């Protein structure tokens, strides 16, 4: 793949090293001359010193038709301009931007940046997930938050205890993929009876998540 990496310091250095091992075609642009030289000598690769928010820099670096552009500078605005310039003027297929302000994650996506990464945003998501463990619920989002996996502990006073799955009127878009009944792992069918202390692994969509959790935790 042809990959353009703009800005960034140690994260750029790290990513360059990683991608070099995979034998990708790398184009590296860094405005900080000193750091550009460091990355260059450290990884034995050419680095273009220049401002990636300017079209002529991307042009000089021959970034045209790249598969991916990664914008890693410390300025959210500059990263946005770099991504949009790459996408609109250089036909770059996928743009990825780092952001400092977590509020920019949604905004950049809305404005056409394909993928937006904020360490604070990720941290907040992790904390949200961790905090729900207290109520014996763990969730994991897959496929860009279109699918959620919910892990939920069954307590003895839940209404669905000792019922067969086929007899429970579940909400739509729910699939109990797996039941963990220490030490056994059960792939359930309609005849499977849910027991207290079971751990249910449920696949669902984010919209239905709260409804499903509420349904399962209904008390007798």
């Amino acid at each position, binding site marked *: 793949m042809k990959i353009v990496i703009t800005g960034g310091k140690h994260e750029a250095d790290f990513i360059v090293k990683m991608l070099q091992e995979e034998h990708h075609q790398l184009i590296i642009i860094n405005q900080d001359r000193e750091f550009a030289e460091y990355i260059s000598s450290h990884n034995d690769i050419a680095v273009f010193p220049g401002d990636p*928010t*300017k*079209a*002529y820099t991307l042009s000089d670096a021959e970034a045209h038709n790249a598969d991916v552009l990664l914008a890693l500078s410390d*300025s*959210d*605005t*500059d990263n*946005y*301009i770099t991504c*949009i*310039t790459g996408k*609109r*003027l250089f036909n770059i297929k996928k743009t990825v931007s780092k952001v400092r*302000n977590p*509020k920019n994650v949604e*905004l950049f996506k*809305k*404005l*056409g940046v394909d993928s937006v990464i904020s360490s604070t945003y990720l941290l907040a998501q992790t904390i949200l997930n961790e905090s729900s463990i207290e109520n014996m619920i763990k969730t994991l989002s897959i496929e860009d938050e279109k699918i959620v996996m919910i892990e939920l502990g069954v307590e003895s006073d839940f209404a669905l205890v000792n019922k067969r799955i086929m007899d429970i009127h579940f909400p739509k878009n729910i699939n109990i993929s797996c039941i963990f009944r220490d030490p056994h792992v059960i792939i359930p069918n309609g005849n499977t009876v849910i027991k207290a202390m079971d751990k249910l692994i449920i696949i669902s969509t984010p919209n239905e998540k709260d409804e499903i959790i509420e349904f399962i935790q209904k008390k007798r």
Partner: protein
Amino acid sequence: MKRNKFVVIGSGRLGANIATKMSELGEDVIIIDATEDSFRKLQETFSGYQVVGDATDLSVLENSYIKHAKAVVITTDSDNVNIFLSHICYYVYNVPKIFVRLADTDKGRLLEGTYIKAIYPFTLSLNEFMNLSEVEEE
């Protein structure tokens, strides 16, 4: 929703004077700048609102009635910020009239396909020079 506000982002010489003029013409003007000091450039006849804040923060824009703006003029001192803000006003808030000052004519290519209007001091100065030098020759 009624769109009756006139929003100016960046209270430099150009922004402050546009804000003053539009205020004199009876528009309901809101001017935003990151530093309070910049509002000194507003003339005494300005009777609109001043908002101190970073306009690239959506909450600042929304507190400045961007959803009720019939027009926005963007004149901060950074082209990148100006393009970013004009895209936000166009794609997120659908402001019907957007004007943006750009130093680099090359950046105007990022406005293609939109109704955002760019003002290039460079082009204006160049044209003015050509006009003035023509007059001299005659």
